[in-house]
């Protein structure tokens, strides 16, 4: 056990701190969650790439910094920008999911054409994976692409396409081999959101905002070479990408920031003569959450160490998403309780605290827990992969007629 990063890394950390002190005036204000990057944000992004604080390990020929992978340095960068409350570069699905996929499975031309432009924020992507009837099982997806005159002709519907309104491009899973078995009939296409036949409808959620969209495709024509990986291999291409998803690692810094904000809130919020933190019952819940957050931070360090050693993350990694979401939700719940009646103010009300962030978080985190059955899926993964428990009995016994009918039923429900 050694919590020190060593002198080389301490120097690296000092260097980042110096950079932050010198440049923090250039940092863009925190962006609305799903907007296009501002000119300021793009300048900041380019500055960070230049110094190797983002896109660090992406080869220079594709617009990255070109450093050798160093998990600790990446970790230090994340820690320092989080501590300084500055954006550590753009974080969008194009960067977190498409770029790693192209690096791994794209053609050289695809890499050259898209990676640099994506990294700098000039091209914005959205993700087209989920469908109303295939929330918990991507293999179930129905959006189809038939070939006609050297083009894919796409019809169908995607949901939870978060940045579809702002995006220039989409990376999208479609079914190209209708007769193939579930997982092998899927292809991974990339195409412009400007093609005729694409309609984006905002999807309002319980938070009152439209953080997501539904995206409809009617005879959308895409050249056959706009495919990543082989035809029918899209499921595996996407899975390679899912592995890159940052969320899988959880973000202990984010959890720590929420906790610190909660502590601050409870020290400020007054109840009669006292403060919220002076209430023993609320304080007990606060300390309990602090222990949970500390545990998740330690768990994160453990995963990091395993990665450094090239060891698998194991159970420590499998539980991160489920547990982080739950702890984050509980932090918001306590904040609301600590505010008393003020806890329900929202929609830019007078006296609202922190711009309504606590209620927004409370609801959005619940969305993350349940979205597409996430908590249920996470529990299945933990049980089956982590604990090696038996899978649900195969459904092969259900007749194919029943399956067909069920599928339609599902569709109708999903679109309701």
């Amino acid at each position: 056990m050694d919590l020190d990063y060593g002198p080389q890394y301490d120097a690296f950390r000092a260097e980042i701190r110096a950079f932050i002190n010198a440049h923090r005036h250039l940092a863009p204000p925190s962006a609305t969650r799903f907007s296009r990057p501002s000119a300021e944000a793009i300048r900041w992004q380019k500055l960070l790439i230049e110094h190797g604080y983002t896109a660090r390990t992406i080869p220079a020929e594709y617009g990255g910094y070109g450093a050798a992978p160093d998990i600790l340095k990446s970790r230090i960068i994340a820690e320092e920008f989080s501590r300084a409350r500055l954006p550590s570069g753009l974080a969008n699905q194009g960067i977190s999911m498409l770029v790693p996929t192209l690096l791994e499975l794209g053609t050289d031309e695809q890499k050259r054409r898209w990676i640099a432009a994506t990294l700098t924020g000039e091209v914005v992507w959205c993700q087209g994976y989920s469908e109303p009837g295939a929330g918990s099982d991507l293999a179930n997806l129905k959006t189809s692409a038939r070939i006609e005159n050297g083009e894919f002709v796409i019809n169908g519907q995607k949901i939870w396409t978060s940045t579809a309104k702002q995006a220039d491009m989409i990376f999208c899973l479609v079914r190209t081999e209708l007769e193939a078995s579930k997982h092998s009939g899927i292809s991974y296409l990339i195409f412009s959101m400007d093609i005729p036949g694409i309609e984006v409808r905002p999807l309002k959620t319980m938070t009152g905002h439209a953080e997501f969209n539904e995206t409809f495709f009617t005879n959308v024509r895409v050249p056959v070479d706009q495919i990543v990986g082989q035809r029918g291999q899209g499921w595996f291409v996407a899975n390679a990408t899912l592995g890159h998803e940052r969320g899988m690692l959880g973000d202990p810094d984010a959890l720590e920031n929420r906790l610190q904000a909660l502590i601050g809130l409870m020290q400020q919020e007054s109840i009669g003569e006292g403060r919220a933190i002076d209430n023993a019952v609320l304080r007990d819940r606060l300390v309990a959450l602090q222990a949970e957050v500390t545990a998740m931070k330690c768990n994160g360090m453990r995963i990091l160490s395993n990665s450094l050693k090239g060891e698998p993350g194991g159970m420590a990694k499998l539980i991160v998403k489920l547990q982080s979401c739950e702890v984050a939700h509980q932090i918001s719940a306590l904040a609301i309780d600590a505010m008393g009646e003020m806890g329900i103010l929202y929609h830019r009300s007078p006296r609202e605290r922190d711009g309504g962030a606590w209620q927004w978080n409370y609801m959005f985190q619940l969305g993350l827990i349940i979205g597409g059955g996430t908590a249920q899926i996470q529990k299945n993964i933990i049980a089956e992969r982590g604990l090696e428990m038996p899978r649900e009995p195969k459904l092969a016994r259900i007749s194919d007629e029943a399956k067909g009918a069920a599928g339609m039923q599902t569709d109708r429900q999903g679109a309701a």
Partner: protein
Amino acid sequence: MDFGLSQDQQILRDAVARCLADTSPLEHVRECAGRDNPLSDTIFGALHDLAVPAMLVPEEHGGLGMTLLDAAVVAEQLAYAVTPAPFLASVVLAPIALSEAGTNKQKCQWLPKIARGEARIGVAISATVQARDGAGVQFVEGKLSGTALFCLDFEGADAYLVADAGGRLHLVPALASGLKATRLTTIDRTRSVGELSFAAVETDPLADDGGTASARLRDAGRVILAADSLGAGQAMIEKAVDYAGQREQFGRPIGSFQAVKHMCAEMAARHEPCRALVWYAAHVFDALPEDASLAACHAKSLTGDVHRFVARTATEVHGGMGFTDLLGLHYWFKRIGFDRQVLGGPEAVRAEAAALQGWTRAA
């Protein structure tokens, strides 16, 4: 001995339920929730046809002289239909306050109008529970100064009932000079709240009873909020069960999966005893006043916790669909959120319950 609703109460419940099924469908709720003033005149009119505004007004003032249990029965239905209509303050608390502590003149002036649906009174007593943001209203030399937060049934009120720092209630016309009224918006767009700030405002005080009346209002308010939570929770459980019965996955309704079934059963097991407790708390408010405060605390805090669980779990059963706006499930979710916090969250209310029983040592 009969622990349950009388036949009249069942008739009332069914009549209100039918009325709201007609007048408060989800589309109308959506429309109202999008407005600055969500309170629906159509619905209030229909409730007026059922004489709801007259419920708690004494018969000698043109009302029906009904009990808090009757009001709780109505509250449950209002929440079941996430009704954007004035009720808690204007139909329940104001008539109780005036009947129990109003001067004769106040009674004659206001109660008949309330009964006829012609006057609505907002009520601001939250400072008697927990003073936040330094709120509080001082009664000095016959005038009110300070701020009262969380005035209930705020929009369209003709007057406000406000508790001062000593717990005494005051009636202030909405147009009184020196009074500034500011809308507050909450997660729950089916209710209307606001804050009142007073700069030496002339007042028409109710009886100087050492806070008795405002304490009664707090009890009544908590019972009605608990009943509201009950109705909203009932709706959410039913919706979860319906959805689980229709939505299919892997070729069968998700409601046939054990994990989903057990989520629904756990909701029902925790929700159902709340119903009897809310009835009890409402009943003793009139029948056994010495038990009323404790019972109100129990009802408020238990429903607060149980229905937070129900709101979350029912949403989870709906999966991603529950998170979107499409089914409108969140209106009930937020109504429960409102009920939990207003007039004291579970922890605050339990601390009061402990004090009532002498379990809290003087510090």
